[in-house]
């Protein structure tokens, strides 16, 4: 049975292996250079601002590769579900070959077990290689990424660490299940993609924020958490500020909400929304001065008035706990679907 499974699977397996090999080779060749560039830059910058400038420049230069690698890791599980999972059984049902193979001296339960194990483990292994290689390669970039693309950010989180193995296993078994139920390859592929995409959206939006209770804290305002600072009427009017999805002292945290509160503690603006603060935009520390902008004194004044950022967030050190929990959730989903597959093939499929 192992031979037959491999014989049917070897074409796409070898193709995937070649693609993965190319990807890891490219990552292995460029990774050390990237790390060295990062190390040099860090050693070279003296002040905080200089380091920030280096981060921005370094990340900006490599952003395209960063996004491409992350996308590849995110796409791999969907592809295994689509091209390995969905056709695994439905192609046999479509061609009628299940009647041939189920009448050899092997029970269909065993037939399914071997097919699921061999193909599924290959999918997980591919995702493991891809995910860990990407995690290793993008380490320096993750350290210098803008908050929206930090390690905990929804899109990047899924492209790092162990979760891609969970995604791949789930997508694969989802494809198998859908293929078994739909019995036709192309509709099964389409449906698999739709369902998997829905799950992948629901996870970061609805589930992941609640994996652990988020931290709620109030922060003084500063350059780390204020994203917008505008003075109306060409420097003559109100000063408007807006908080951004970051908290001071915890770079890389996944900020769920960030609100601006006034001295009484009332929320006056949500994340990214501007709200006026009663400081002068024409004179004093917040007024525009010649030379490079330095707002440190301005922050002191605004904070003295009692304006604060109120944020709920998951700190960066929760990255690995979240990875394990989410991998576990997908493993459970995979196990449940696998159990269903065995039940269905014994009881309902003919």
């Amino acid at each position, binding site marked *: *049975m192992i031979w037959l499974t491999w014989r049917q699977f070897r074409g796409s397996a070898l193709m995937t292996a070649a693609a993965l090999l190319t990807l890891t080779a490219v990552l292995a060749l460029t990774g050390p250079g990237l790390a060295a560039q990062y190390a040099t830059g860090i050693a070279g910058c003296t002040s905080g601002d200089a380091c920030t400038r280096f981060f921005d420049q370094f990340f900006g230069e490599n952003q395209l590769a960063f996004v491409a690698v992350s996308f590849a890791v995110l796409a791999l599980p969907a592809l295994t579900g689509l091209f390995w999972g969905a056709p695994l059984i439905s192609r046999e049902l479509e*061609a*009628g070959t299940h009647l041939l193979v189920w009448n*050899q*001296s092997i*029970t269909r339960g065993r037939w399914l077990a071997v097919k699921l194990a061999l193909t599924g483990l290959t999918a997980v292994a591919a995702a493991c290689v891809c995910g860990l290689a990407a995690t290793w390669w993008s380490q320096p970039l993750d350290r210098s990424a803008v908050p929206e693309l930090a390690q905990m950010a929804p899109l990047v989180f899924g492209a790092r660490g162990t979760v891609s193995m969970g995604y791949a296993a789930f997508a694969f078994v989802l494809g198998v299940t859908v293929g078994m139920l739909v019995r036709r390859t192309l509709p099964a592929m389409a449906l698999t993609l739709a369902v998997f995409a829905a799950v992948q959206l629901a996870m970061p939006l609805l589930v992941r924020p609640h994996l652990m209770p988020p931290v709620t804290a109030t922060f003084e305002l500063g350059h780390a958490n204020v994203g917008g600072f505008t003075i109306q009427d060409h420097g003559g009017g109100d000063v408007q500020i807006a908080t951004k999805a970051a908290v001071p002292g915890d770079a890389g945290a996944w900020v769920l909400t960030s609100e601006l509160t006034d001295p009484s503690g009332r929320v006056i603006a949500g994340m990214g929304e501007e709200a006026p603060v009663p400081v002068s935009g024409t004179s004093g520390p917040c007024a525009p001065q010649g030379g490079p902008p330095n707002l440190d004194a301005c922050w002191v004044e605004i904070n003295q008035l009692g304006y604060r950022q109120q944020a709920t967030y998951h700190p960066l050190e929760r990255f690995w706990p979240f990875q394990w929990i989410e991998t576990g959730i997908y493993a459970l989903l995979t196990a449940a679907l696998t159990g269903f597959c065995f039940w269905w093939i014994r009881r309902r499929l003919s």
Partner: protein
Amino acid sequence: MTPVLQTQDLGKRYGKRWALRDCALDIPAGHVVGLVGPNGAGKTTLLKLATGQLEPTAGTISVLGGSPAATPAQLAKVGFVAQDTPVYAGLTVADHLKLGARLNPRWDAAMARERLTRLGLAPNHRAGRLSGGERAQLALTLGLAKRPDLLILDEPVASLDPLARREFLQALMEATVAHEFSVVLSSHLVSDLERVCDYLIVLTDSRVRVAGEVDRLLATHHRLTGPRRDPARLPADQHVISASHTDRQSTYVIRTDAPIHDPAWLVTQLNLEDLVLAYMDRRPNGDRRLDLEVQR
């Protein structure tokens, strides 16, 4: 000796429709059993129940004394060539033999190779490129080389041309003689079965109409032609299978074990096709539409 196929009140329902119901069969070993009936009568359902592809909705079925497809040992004893003789289009002929060898404990590799050589099927040929007849022969080879005690074939020759049909059935008969196994094969054509079967099951409208050894069926069924007569006036041991009347004449097909003495009747022997048609014709609602495709 264990019967090859034994069923009691066997039924299979899809939704509200019974594909097969009240099926009671007891087929002894050593026969070539023909299962005949119009399309949609339930032939495939019965064969799929016998191979364990389907679970019965009602009743019991046992094949060679065991529950269908329950264990690898049971699977090894029963060969199945499915309708349209599916093979893996992407695999070569040699791959199929390897598949058979790896998945079957009783695999007869020498026989399989020898058969394919005789048929002229090149081992490196892709199965997807074979003609319908060659594909059927490959599927039959897989079924035969498994060395089953019972080989089940579902409409194996339906898609073949007359020559390939004859070759296929001939190959099957030669193999039954050489290896002594039982065969159940279905067809909607009586002519296919006439040449090869010594046991017959007629299935129409999801029910078994008659089952028995061909010789015995032919010996106990007669066509009576004579002056018009009411069926109630026939002797009690003569069971009417079908009847047709004109103004002055009646024609009955009857089943009886006793000799027919009435001098008013012209008694003629039936051939297998007449017999099958008589059972097909017997519709409870009087619908005499002939839905058996007859081909000679």
